[in-house]
């Protein structure tokens, strides 16, 4: 595949950066829509494995954007994608942080927060469901998704345990000839 032009990478992620309320997980459906459907940089399967790699590695989940940049345009793509995703929102946070320190506790700020929180949570749930639709093709993978969701919902243990257990279960399943 021909490398994607850097200006396109920069534009795509810079505009995503400014709407990514709730962080990378909340924009996952939009990320997938842009990268797979609109721009055609990769297919669903590749997107799902990049997402899984980003989740399995430590660090902010926004790193999936760096990974996408790397995948479509090498090291330059990685640098441009990361900066485009991080810089606009960070500058906004910088300014907002100073304003809020001055206005701490103001009523308007609390109303904004209370209004945005449910949308944020709804967007994260949507991300999970969209990812599940991409990743789950058989009973075993549906079970792994549901199992991990319960694990995270009910416990405060490190999610890494669930992710690595899922990898092992899926591996055993393929040896036993189960479709995944």
């Amino acid at each position, binding site marked *: 595949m021909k490398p994607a032009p850097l200006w396109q990478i920069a534009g795509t992620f810079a505009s995503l*950066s*400014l*709407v990514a*309320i709730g962080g*990378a997980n909340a924009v996952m*459906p939009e990320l997938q*829509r842009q990268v797979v459907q609109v721009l055609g940089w990769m297919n669903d399967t590749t997107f799902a494995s990049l997402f*899984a*790699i*980003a*989740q*399995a*590695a*430590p*660090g*902010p989940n*926004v*790193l999936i954007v760096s990974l996408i940049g*790397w995948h479509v345009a090498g090291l330059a793509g*990685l640098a441009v994608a990361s900066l485009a995703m*991080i810089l*606009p*929102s*960070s500058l906004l*946070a*910088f300014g907002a*942080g*100073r304003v*809020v320190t*001055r206005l*701490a506790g103001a009523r308007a700020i609390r*109303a904004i927060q*209370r*209004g945005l*929180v*449910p949308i944020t*949570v*709804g*967007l*994260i749930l*949507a991300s*999970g*469901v*969209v990812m599940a639709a991409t*990743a*789950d093709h058989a009973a*075993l*993978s549906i079970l792994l*998704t549901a199992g*991990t*969701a*319960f694990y995270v919902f009910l416990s405060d243990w*490190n999610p890494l345990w*669930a*992710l*690595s257990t*899922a*990898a092992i279960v*899926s591996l055993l399943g*393929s040896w036993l000839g189960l479709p995944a």
Partner: protein
Amino acid sequence: MPGSDASAPSLPKAAKRVGRMELFLGFLKIGVLGFGGVAPWARRVIVEERAWLSEEEYASLLGVGQILPGPNTLNLAVMVGDRFQRALGALIAVAALMTMPLAILMAVASLYERFAAFPEVASAMSGTAAAAAGLVIGTALKMTRRLRPTRMAILFGLVAFVAIGVLRFPLIAVVAVLAPISIAAAALERRA
């Protein structure tokens, strides 16, 4: 409010001094430890281990980080860095938070591209992808439980979920329409 001093007494700026190196090492640790998301580790390091911020200060900064676009922890890093070492501190905190995970991620990804042809790797990765989806779903459910939303909040959450997750509308349009309505509703609900 007593006096016209810009720094509110509830947020004492110079309560604690945090040096540049300290800032760098702290956020480096948060990044490296943060498997499956850095948010829990950020609180542990900033509040419990190093006591840079009190629980209340941390919660108020995180709240701002959450309502702004961009990764919550990254926004938090910008604001914490700025508070202790001005603009340079913000830069240091963000760089420290991103550097190690990025290096690890590139190593993992290049190993993956080399080994992706093996069926074992492919099936392990498909299992991980399924679990990663579950991690996101479980996180949303957990947040819902902890936030104890009002009925109206649940309604707005569901509308956002259906618009994006089921109908697959573009995010910008959904947020642009839904956010002002939800904020107005929250403001009115408070007054009622």
